[in-house]
């Protein structure tokens, strides 16, 4: 009974990817792959996704710790708010970022006036947009790991004279490492594929804000073959990420 829809579902997920591989212009692929445009977009994508992930780690791990251990009032509400970017259409996220961090935005105007910093339509803007969309993945994953970890080990560390920071660094963090790694990989993959928030907040300027997904979209209008090549590269990256996420790490998410 269930076999047929199951097979259909599997085909639905796999056929487009097979189509992508089948339609690839294999003969001209090497020359297209090593064109300056592709490399530029790929390099920018990797740099921005990695920077966004680092930003997410720096802000997201402490946030996850506070959510899991801080004993906050309205923790459930805060937790729900953290996950909003997860379900929010990325374009809406981009608009929101523009309203807050844009040159006339709530915070952006002061950044501009006081520090001469303007985030929209810059590479830094790409990082901010990607981090905004990707951080919930990290927070949820790390928070889950923290809540599963036994807080009594932290108490044991305290009785041995370890302060909060030392305890976090030497006891808590190592015990939640699988969750952190899983969250980081998911966060990075999400940042790498980010499109909607990026194009809204950072625009599409080759070399500065045109990441791979944006390049694919652009190329589809002008040269579909290039779009296929770029897509293949992203597919390859995704597969590598998936392969590196071994069973153990994925289990850290549950």
């Amino acid at each position: 009974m269930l076999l047929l829809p199951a097979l259909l579902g599997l085909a639905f997920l796999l056929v487009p990817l097979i189509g992508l591989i089948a339609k690839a212009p294999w003969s001209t692929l090497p020359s297209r792959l090593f064109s300056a445009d592709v490399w530029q977009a790929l390099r920018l994508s990797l740099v921005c996704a990695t920077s966004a992930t680092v930003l997410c780690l720096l802000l997201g791990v402490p946030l996850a710790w506070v959510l899991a251990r801080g004993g906050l009032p309205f923790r459930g509400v805060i937790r729900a708010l953290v996950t909003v970017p997860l379900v929010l259409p990325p374009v809406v996220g981009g608009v929101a970022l523009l309203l807050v961090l844009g040159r006339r935005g709530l915070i952006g105007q002061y950044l501009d006036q006081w520090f001469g910093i303007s985030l929209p339509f810059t590479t830094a803007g790409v990082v901010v947009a990607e981090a905004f969309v990707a951080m919930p993945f990290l927070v949820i994953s790390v928070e889950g790991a923290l809540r599963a970890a036994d807080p009594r080990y932290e108490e044991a560390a305290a009785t041995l004279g370890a302060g909060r920071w030392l305890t976090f660094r030497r006891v808590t963090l190592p015990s939640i490492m699988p969750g952190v790694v899983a969250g980081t990989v998911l966060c990075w993959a999400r940042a790498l594929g980010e499109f909607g928030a990026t194009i809204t907040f950072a625009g599409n300027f080759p070399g500065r804000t045109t990441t791979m997904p944006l390049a694919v979209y652009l190329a589809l209008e002008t040269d579909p073959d290039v779009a296929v090549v770029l897509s293949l590269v992203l597919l390859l990256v995704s597969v590598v990420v998936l392969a590196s996420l071994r069973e153990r790490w994925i289990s850290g998410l549950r």
Partner: protein
Amino acid sequence: MTLYADVRVSRGSFDLAVDLVVQPGEVVALLGPNGAGKTTALRAIAGLLPLGGGRIALDDEIWDEPPRTFRTADRRPIGVVFQDYLLFDHMSCLENVAFGLRARGVDKHAARTEASRWLDTVGLSSYARTRPRSLSGGQAQRVALARALATDPELLLLDEPLAALDAGTTLHVRAELGQHLRRYSGCTLLVTHDPLDAMVLADRLVIIENGRIVQQGHPTEIARHPRTDYVAQLVGLNLYRGNAEGTTVTLTEPARPGATITLAEPASGPVHVAFPPTAVSLYVEPPSGSPRNTWPAIVTGIEQHAHTVRVRLDATPTGPAVLLADITPAAVADLHLAPGQPLHATLKATEVHTYPV
């Protein structure tokens, strides 16, 4: 340095008020049934739980005195051995033992040297690089003890240190723990629900029930003169309260009016009456020669112990409402024991202890 702990903690309807003093070199066991508040008291003294009232101090160094003073656990000179040890699994045994020294600012090399000396002391020097996960229960307990003692704490706290072990290893590990505790010069507070652990390891017992101290003293004194039903059960004695007049005690608790016990030695006033279950004999027919304490009784329960059978009886209205008797399996066969069966119980007056309430 002496520990003065007047621990008051309230949580919901549970209310803990325990006043303890532990002298240096002394091992005090906090003994009580589950839910009596033992672990809560230990956590408060360790600084893992703030007091609601009272005061915890080591000599004149105040650790906790609400609402003004609270020192967190990491700023108290303590060592704690937790019930399931809580060894850090991502570190080797050596790193576990060295952790407290490192946390207290000892440099890496000195910490490792001291840690390996401690592993040597507990006989585990060959396990320095082993992960705690692959240790046996007894070994893990020794590493936990070494970790707690490595920082040279003023106060050692042990939370059910033998509860996680299987019966076969407990005897050996208990003896070894006893040796380490005798060598340790600081204050030791041991929390346990096992009377044997407490009797063997502690110099003094403090027994708590429902958040209150019900009895404290030297283990032999407590074993001989229990003051509550829980303690009597722990040390395996029948215990009653009553009013003595000459050689007759009229039981007040737990008994119904009219129940009396006859003594060999006269006493007076409110007393505890205690005697071992082996002092009670059972007969189908009323025994001839009428010994002084003979009561008709009804069997309410039968339990097999190692080499004896413990029979629970109701001897009302002339005797105690709950009477325990230890008899041999052969006697069980002779009596054809079954619940509800009427018998005659006799008690040797010479084996009855009385002491003032």
